[in-house]
């Protein structure tokens, strides 16, 4: 299988008033196309930092990150923007929808930056909203729908440019159990039916069980990496 993500000896430092803080301390991981990976680990272990790097939102301090065989360190700002637009779909814990735009416009926004014309954008946005079951809410504003629905919209937005890779940082963190399960079912379908590679951060073992591979972060390092079904149910 094709390697979507290949990370070698990745470190990430943050400059703070108190000095350098080393958040990621040498991470090696390879993720192949079609994988469904869940990342777990204690708070502050560097999961979000890692995801942001995977999403080309943040830069590595040292080590290398190959995305689809391309070293991201060699890419310009605009080339990275293009990757975020076409190759990666990012789903945030806080949804990150644009408040004053209706759902169709929110979902269609990546297409604007991809240079698609307005009519085609609208058709595609409606289509993708329908696939997450929200076609009737197209003209609603984000604050007029529930959190679960907002996360569906955010997923729809992440999917609209048919990305190879979906990155989701605690996508169900703000949702109740039932809604979380619905969202996870959506991810499973995308992974199984469309073959989209998914990397997802969660604190809940029940959520992690939807994935096929589990990676455990502790203190900026991968402590465990293996198939999900071999992992014992952790105490919450």
């Amino acid at each position, binding site marked *: 299988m094709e390697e979507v993500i290949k990370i070698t000896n990745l470190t990430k430092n943050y400059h703070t008033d108190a000095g350098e803080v080393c958040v990621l301390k040498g991470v090696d991981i390879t993720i192949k196309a079609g994988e469904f990976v869940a990342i777990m680990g204690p708070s502050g272990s560097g999961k979000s930092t890692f995801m942001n790097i995977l999403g080309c939102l943040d830069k590595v301090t040292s080590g290398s990150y190959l995305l689809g065989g391309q070293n991201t360190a060699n890419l310009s700002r605009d080339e990275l923007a293009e990757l975020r637009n076409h190759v990666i779909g990012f789903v945030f814990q806080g949804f*990150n929808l644009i408040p004053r735009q209706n759902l169709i416009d929110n979902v269609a926004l990546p297409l604007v930056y991809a240079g698609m014309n307005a009519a085609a954008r609208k058709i595609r946005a409606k289509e993708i909203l329908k696939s997450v079951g929200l076609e009737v809410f197209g003209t609603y504003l984000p604050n007029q729908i529930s959190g679960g629905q907002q996360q569906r919209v955010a997923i729809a937005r992440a999917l609209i440019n048919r990305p190879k890779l979906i990155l989701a940082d605690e996508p169900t963190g703000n949702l109740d159990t039932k809604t979380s399960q619905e969202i996870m079912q959506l991810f499973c379908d995308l992974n199984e039916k469309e073959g989209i590679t998914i990397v997802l951060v969660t604190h809940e073992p029940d959520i992690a069980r939807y994935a096929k591979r589990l990676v455990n972060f502790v203190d900026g390092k991968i402590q465990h990496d293996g198939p999900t079904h071999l992992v014992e149910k952790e105490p919450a």
Partner: protein
Amino acid sequence: MSLSMLFEAWRAMGANRLRTFLTMLGMVIGVGAVIVMSAIGAGTQAKVKESIASMGSNLLIVLAGSMTSGGVRLGSGGVQTLTIADASAMEELESISATAPTSSGSAQLIYQSANWSTQVTGTTPSYFQVRDWEIESGYPFMDSDVRGATRVVVLGKTIAQNLFGDEEAVGKTIRIKNSPYLVVGVLSKKGQSLDGRDQDDTAIVPITTAQTKLFGSQFKGSVRFIMVEAVSDKVMDKAEQEMAQLLRQRHKLRESAEDDFTIRNLTALANTAEETTKAMSLMLAAIASISLLVGGIGIMNIMLVSVTERTREIGIRIAIGAKQRHILVQFLLEALMISIIGCLIGVCVGVGGALLVQKFFSISVAITQSSIMVSFLVATGVGVFFGFYPARKAANLEPIEALRYQ
């Protein structure tokens, strides 16, 4: 740049209407001020130009008496050194096309029950040429009238209207100082002179008539001043020199003696007046431009606030694939939209304001196309210039920092 980006900018503007309006107000006032000020400037300039044109072209004026004599101006009343013969002699000079000796005094004009006090000017028929003054109806008087000192008069438009109303004036007889004068012509309208006098409030009679029958003269044949028209504007200086030489010769002045006359180049004076008004209107426009600048700073200020407020939104846009130019254009468009819409309103306000100024302060204004076009250009420039820094600041945000911004 697509329609949807314009729409996007429009929506962003609408999100905080009061703030957008207040920012726009800066532009409205700036552009309005520029339009009003330049309209006043252009109006004044046009008026001065008109007055200058109405004076006659290539005009020199020779006054009796020297300008100063040991610091004391010798009034033309006392020294009567210029004569009609001087005028005729000067007319022979190559650089001079016409001369009009002039004496004037005030008198009351009466026609039936109407009467009017005015300045009556005695001169020769070339006066009409020198002043570029058309006869509207009737004819000017002739050289023969000057020779015969006949009682004929050419009336200015104001007097004709005040004495005769709608009635035809030519052919009627009016009384000046109780003697009957035949109205032979009415002059066309000339409007105000540079010093604001109504030039049409005048009556013109043959100079001989004025001297012998109207005012009398201590020194027969002497005149207050002679109006001179040079052949072209290029020979003004030459004409001045030749005239001075001729007059000194005719007046038999010794080498050491001062001139007993003064020559003024009215065209040069007029040019100075024109320069002055030009400078004035430039200054008005410059002062108004400052308010435009202040308006621009207002835009920059509000765009900076807007960029800070929307840092998170910018972060989201960058995260889903907006390139730097997308963000740059988005914020530039917003700044431009504020400045251009402000400019549009400002043009309306400015034009309205200028018309109000004209109406209530009776200052002549001229709204020029160029002032509107310049306002647009400057407003666009201001939008781009003051919008660029905030827009660039937005476009240069780091994605992760923008997303984390609370």
